């Protein structure tokens, strides 16, 4: 049964029919969308606590009333993991919060994470019926977060049921969102899952990439703990392709391998001065702060604390970096982006939050050279002013240099956040694995199976650089496909 069918079935339940009848759709649509409670901007830009504070039960129940419980919920089509959106929302409306959380966990191994970092405005909420009525979408993301948080805070966390063990061992390379989602689904189906992580902590990008103020690490720990309770084994400090080869894994009795090694190799622009001291990738900067906790005086890992920090790029990682710099004491923190704000790939919420925290935006500017002092430290950059031309392959208007329009910007730290290339470790270590020109693992689209039969792959190692939820969707699809392939075999 698909999750859409499940939602339809639950929709027939008497309690839900009653609930629908309790209020007219017009009344539901008249309720204004809830506003997220937030930590004050001046205060939060000096601490690392979470910016969004979540909804109260009353706010959540009120927001849940807004959902019309459509017979054909288009929101679900916008969800890469197929969450039964109306079902969990109606449980919230009915005040049955644990069941709302349980519904989420049927399809989503990390609801508390997704409720915080998914770009809902481009997925489920972009398809909400309210938009067709010129109203704001139901705050599906806030409600997801509410249900998951309420369960955690109640202390009565339900562990999803797993099928009896079938004794089949599967290995996962990488413990980021794709790997965790795959592990959860396979464990649920009765497989014996072992997740290998190259770093010393579990969570992949959720650990090293997304900052505490957007995704508290205790939430990541809690979601991982649920997977542990479902029987998933986690082995840190083990680099698949290096510590253990593909052959080692097969010899150990693993029947399938899901490769979710994530994006690696930060892109640099290849301009003069990029290797000056104080110029670094956002991956380095965020890893130092998030994974290594360099902001903690007890930590042995150092980090630059510029007073005048420039971050190059307009994506979510750029926003995470610039907002982190502010929290580490930057008096001035600037986003330098070559297109205009309309083309920025970052979530609107992140841009809004950044602006509230005093981040400056220098759009239509592109660095062409970094300037150093006598000690080799960055002290400024030369910027080419840009204008927008015709749309390019991405559908966004192409930035073009305005001849002769060069400016300089003083800075004592530069964080380059202009995308990543796939991690080369596994692609080069697994002989016979077919790769794209960019070095991404090539997979069959519907099954995510690679050219090596027992190896499946998903997330950024396949996509090159996407979102947490797309990676999680890949994990689910690969789990379903691997299970189906083995069921078909004698």
């Amino acid at each position: 049964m698909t999750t859409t069918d499940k939602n339809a079935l639950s929709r027939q339940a008497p309690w839900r029919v009653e609930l629908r009848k309790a209020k007219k759709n017009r009344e539901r649509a008249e309720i204004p969308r809830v506003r997220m409670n937030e930590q004050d901007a001046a205060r939060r830009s000096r601490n690392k606590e979470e910016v969004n504070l979540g909804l109260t039960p009353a706010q959540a129940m009120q927001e849940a009333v807004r959902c019309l419980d459509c017979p054909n919920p288009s929101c679900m089509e916008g969800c890469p993991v197929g969450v039964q959106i109306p079902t969990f929302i109606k449980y919230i409306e009915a005040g049955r919060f644990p069941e709302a959380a349980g519904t989420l966990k049927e399809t989503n191994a990390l609801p508390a994470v997704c409720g915080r970092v998914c770009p809902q405005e481009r997925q489920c909420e972009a398809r909400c019926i309210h938009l067709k009525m010129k109203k704001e979408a139901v705050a599906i993301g806030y409600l997801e977060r509410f249900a998951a948080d309420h369960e955690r805070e109640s202390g009565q966390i339900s562990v999803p049921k797993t099928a009896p063990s079938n004794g089949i061992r599967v290995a996962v390379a990488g413990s980021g969102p794709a790997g965790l989602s795959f592990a959860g689904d396979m464990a649920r189906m009765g497989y014996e899952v072992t997740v290998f992580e190259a770093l010393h902590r579990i969570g992949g990008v959720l650990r090293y990439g997304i900052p505490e103020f957007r995704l508290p690490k205790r939430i990541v720990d809690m979601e991982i703990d649920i997977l542990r309770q479902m029987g998933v084994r986690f082995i840190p400090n083990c680099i698949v392709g290096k510590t253990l080869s593909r052959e080692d894994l097969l010899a150990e009795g693993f029947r399938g391998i899901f490769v979710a090694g994530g994006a690696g190799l930060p892109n640099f622009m290849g301009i003069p001065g990029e290797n000056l001291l104080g110029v670094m990738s956002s991956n380095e900067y965020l890893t130092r702060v998030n994974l290594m906790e360099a902001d903690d005086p007890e930590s042995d890992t150092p980090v630059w604390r510029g007073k005048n920090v420039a971050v190059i790029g307009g994506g979510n990682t750029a926003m995470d970096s610039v907002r982190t710099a502010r929290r580490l004491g930057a008096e001035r923190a600037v986003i330098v982006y070559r297109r205009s704000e309309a083309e920025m790939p970052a979530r609107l919420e992140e841009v809004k939050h950044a602006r509230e925290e005093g981040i400056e935006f220098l759009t239509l500017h592109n660095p062409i050279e970094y300037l150093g002092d006598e000690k080799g430290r960055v002290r400024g950059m030369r910027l080419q002013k840009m204008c927008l031309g015709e749309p390019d392959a991405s559908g966004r208007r192409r930035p073009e240099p305005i001849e002769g329009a060069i400016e300089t910007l003083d800075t004592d730290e530069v964080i380059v956040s202009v995308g990543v290339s796939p991690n080369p470790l596994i692609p080069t270590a697994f002989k016979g694995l077919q790769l794209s020109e960019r070095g991404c693992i090539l997979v069959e689209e519907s099954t995510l199976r690679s050219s090596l039969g027992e190896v499946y792959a998903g997330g950024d190692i396949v996509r090159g650089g996407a979102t947490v939820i797309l990676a999680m969707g890949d994990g689910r699809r690969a789990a379903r496909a691997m299970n189906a392939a083995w069921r078909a075999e004698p």
Partner: protein
Amino acid sequence: MHRILSKERFSSRVVKLEVEAPLIARARKAGHFVIVKTGEKGERIPLTIAGADTQRGSITLVVQAVGTSTEKICALKEGDEITDLAGPLGQATHIEKVGTVLCAGGGVGVAPLMPIVEAMQQAGNRVIVVLAARTRELILLEEPMRAFSDEVILMTEDGSYGEKGLVTQGVENVIRREKVDLCVTIGPAVMMKFVAALTKRYEIPTIASLNTIMVDATGMCGACRVTVGGKTRFVCVDGPEFDAHQVDFNEMLLRLKGYDNDR
């Protein structure tokens, strides 16, 4: 998990540790490195593997106390555990029979040179080793080097042992004396810079193993980037060994200082 099976003190600041790591011992080859982190709040630092014993399931690390993290590692005792250890990382040394290989090591760089010397000799090369240190006490691994090479030349800056002089003098003496087909150098960056400059004059292909600052060491952060032949390369996944004549050592020396005053 990663217990210290034995510890030997080479000098006041240099120790040799044999660490339990059966999977790494099995997978490692000459040239590989590991990431070591001591304590929950420890730093991740790269150390090139100096040897392995697959029977005992252990690897050997030679560590010089030069900063917070290396001091913590050197303070560990037999029976202690290393909190986190991961590897083997990097590309293995390309080993083939080329004729005469001159291996020049300085400081604790002598330790990771050991497996390369061994592998080069086993591949059928004539192997000459130049070991250099400030003073006699700091000359490492002389005996095992003798066992796996055709000749060992010792250089000390104060003349307390072997010949008086720098590693480059030892290297140049050999080059003047006989045909050298390949030079491999591991040591402090400034030493490798001068060895590279010397062998370039004599047009002898030279490999240097670089030890830069790293964080994840799996190709993710770019902290370790160096310029080789005008291109940016990542030491953790593209290296640690590169054509020494192409490496921008001045930039590397500068980048090694990136965190000296930024605590």
